[in-house]
């Protein structure tokens, strides 16, 4: 338990590193120097010191968005096994809470965007809720497949598929889940090809459009939430992928952290190598993710 919480704190502290890694990767591919790896920390420190400006149109719902966008990934991180340790908080059916807290955050982030009365933010909110609706079943299908493989109803054991010898029994299904969840990771975290985090002021963007009016500490909450959410989704993939475990300790944590950074590099390479999809194509890719995960379940249940 103590060890799990220690790992959790490490993850919470190092989450803002991941966007930095993605940025560095993209800069490296493009032959630029790029922002420092620690840029997200500098941004957070700056924003927390700043004042706070709100629109006269808004109500308290406007503040609920940033709060929940930081809380949701923290709760989700509590439920995940991190760095070879069991989750800090584990119970039957915790995977459903994992999915639901993100939905709760989405509700309030989108409502906060609508609260400003700005058409840009409304547009972002509409797109975010639309695409998330298509991504969520993929997550659930993947979890169903993992339950089938592991016989467990909680994330800690469900993701520990090595113990069940699942790679030998059902590698096809696992590969399908990994592919599906990687697409979900890109969609849920507003990365290319679904959204371009660098295009701040265009009609094509999704997540960035929703948070246009947030400033100062509220924006810091949102940025930290974004970084941690990416880390949490990366942790899902890394935990499934890690091939070996020493039985606890620094080795596992280092392997896990290396995995997370690896996911960051892969995301950066994806962003360097392709453009954002046209909006009409986005649902098709998400449905593909759902079908892949659904296929994994069908293979296992037969």
């Amino acid at each position: 338990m103590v060890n799990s919480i220690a790992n959790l704190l490490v993850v919470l502290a190092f989450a803002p590193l991941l966007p930095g890694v993605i940025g560095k990767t993209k800069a490296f591919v493009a032959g630029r120097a790029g922002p420092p790896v620690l840029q997200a920390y500098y941004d957070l420190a700056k924003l927390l010191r700043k004042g706070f400006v709100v629109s006269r149109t808004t109500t308290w719902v406007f503040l609920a968005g940033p709060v929940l966008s930081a809380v949701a990934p923290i709760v989700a991180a509590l439920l995940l096994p991190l760095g070879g340790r069991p989750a800090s908080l584990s119970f039957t059916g915790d995977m459903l809470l994992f999915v639901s807290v993100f939905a709760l955050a989405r509700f309030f982030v989108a409502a906060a965007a609508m609260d400003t009365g700005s058409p840009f933010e409304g547009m972002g909110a509409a797109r975010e809720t639309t695409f998330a609706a298509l991504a969520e079943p993929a997550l659930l299908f993947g979890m169903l497949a993992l339950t089938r493989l592991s016989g467990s109803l909680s994330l800690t054991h469900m993701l520990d598929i090595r113990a069940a010898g699942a790679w030998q029994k059902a590698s096809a299904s696992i590969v399908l889940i990994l592919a599906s969840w990687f697409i979900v990771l890109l969609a849920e975290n507003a990365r290319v090809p679904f959204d371009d985090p660098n295009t701040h002021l265009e009609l094509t963007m999704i997540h960035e459009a929703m948070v246009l009016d947030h400033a100062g500490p509220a924006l810091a909450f949102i940025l930290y939430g974004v970084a941690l959410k990416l880390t949490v989704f990366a942790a899902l993939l890394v935990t499934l992928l890690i091939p070996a475990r020493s039985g606890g300790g620094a080795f596992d944590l280092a392997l896990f952290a290396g995995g997370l950074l690896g996911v960051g590099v892969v995301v950066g390479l994806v962003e360097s190598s392709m453009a954002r999809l046209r909006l009409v194509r986005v649902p098709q890719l998400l449905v593909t993710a759902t079908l892949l995960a659904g296929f994994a379940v069908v293979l296992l249940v037969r």
Partner: protein
Amino acid sequence: MTALDLLAAAALLVGFSGLPGLLLPPGSAAAQRVATVLHVLGCAAGAAAAALALAGDAVTVRLTWSWPPGTATFALDRLSAFFLVPVFVVSGLGSIYGEGYWAEEHHPKNGRKLRCFYGVATAGLALVLVAGDAWSFLVGWEIVSLAAFFLVTTDQDDAGALRAGWIYLVSAHAGTLVLFAMFALLRDATGGWLLAPSDALGASPLLRPILLLALAGFGFKAGMIPFHIWLPDAHAAAPGHVSALLSGIVLKLGIYGLVRLLSMLPAYPTWLGLALVALGITSGVLGVVMALAQHDLKRLLAYHSIENIGIILIGLGVGALGMAQHRLDWAVLGFAGGLLHVWNHAAFKSLLFYSAGAVIHATGTREIDALGGLFRRMRFTGAAFLVGAVAICGLPPLNGFVSEWLIALASFRALTHESGGVEMLGAAAGAPALAFIGALAVACFVKAFSAVFLGRPRRPDGKHGAGDASRSMRFSMGSLALACAVIGLWPTGAAGISRRAGEALLGTRASPIANADLGALGGMPLFLLGVITAAGIVAVVLTRKAALTTTWDCGYSLSGPRIQYTASSFAEMLVGMFRWAVLPDEHRPRLKGPFPAAGQRFETHTPDPALDRFVLPGLSRGKSLLGLLHVIQAGRIQAYILYIVVTLVLLLAWSWSW
């Protein structure tokens, strides 16, 4: 005095609560006060009786009289009591709500009628739920159907309400007709009118037709797609607290009927579970998609009732699949979740209809895109709507999450069993379907809540200056919001009650199962609430020196409230994806230049795809064909009696010839 006696007294009190008011002149506030007091007293007694029955053993009373069928049986068991609780709670709160919403001084023409039938409908609901035989069941069923017709057409001068009322009346009786056939076959299969578990039923060759007829007949009442045709119009036309009663309670009669029939089965056929899951997913997904396409706040909520009936059916279906596989751990989760969703939907949907009613009362419009920015004027109503919206999306830490958690967990639990095959896939489909439905519901309620309450008023004229709801309306909304929170924050209590009610579905095969899965819910929502509160405090501390400014709009100055994203634009993408199911009407003008000419408008309308695209056109096309029957339909009752006699003689002759 048994719980059943108390319940009988309560039903009589509620059923006649509107009568004294009829003796007083129209427009008298005293008449309304008397009716409300009697109604609330009756509902309190009824809720107490239901609570007693939930805690105690089943009571059965058999009355003998000389009228057919000779006996009337009334039974109050846990399953009945479980459905009775929301009946009395929502009906009682609705009557209090009506004090402010349909005040007698403003509605002298129809207020007395409304309260009279509101009481009768509640008493009829109680009668259906304690009916122990098919006869009393159908009598109660008919009382509810007729009373609901008068409730929907409360405003008899409103053409829309009358149309909705007639469509409702016809559909309700189409459903009842199917039920007549179902109960007739049921009597053949079980050898009696009693609604009690029967081993003969399982072996009967009539089982499949009985179940299919029940799905259709109860489906009409529950608003299951494609039998939902009456539902959106009726809910939209009725007064707010009547919509709440219809949606929260009357629909659940269909679920109750189905559950009561399932409790009579000795064994569950696999196809039944698969059919329930499939029907549930269809109703759930299409219900929420059609809701997304609506511009009318109450029609939007009405389509969400279809969605929630779908969720309940998924729960029952997953449970039935578990029973077919003899896996009680999985079945109990499905049944408990499905039943608990009956309570939850009654709470949050009534809450939403109450707060939508308050908005309509204050602004005089149901058009979502004409509203906006109401949160500043109606803080209480807005907060109540928000609670209902979060709950209906199945989000923690409120009650909708608890029941959907149970149903989804049943899906997961199913996959931990070794066996495979189509039952497994059917059960497994439950969890992703719920996730999809829930995520679509998030989109729909972000749209509804923010278009109505957030941003700036879209139409600055009119009654937008109205204040918050009256005290009686706030009381009813507050109570239901509290109920949503209590079930959400103390899930093991409510889940335990629904599990015990669901034991009726597990039959005699299972002694009470201690299910560890239920306990896992435990402190989770409370914990989450704590985390959110803590983070909220941090946020408030960090941001307390907020400076006010205008909304930043990328360098342009915000030109006015009309630039805001509307509800229709918000839903446009999702509705577009489901165009094949929603079948919206689009009037897209052909533009001859960069700007539309004067009078060119882009409009969308979303009539009900089943009613307005198929049923009504089909009926009017069939009218000319049916006109041929006019020849024999002379309008003389003597002729009709002659037809009956001739038919009977022919039938007798036919039966003799065998």
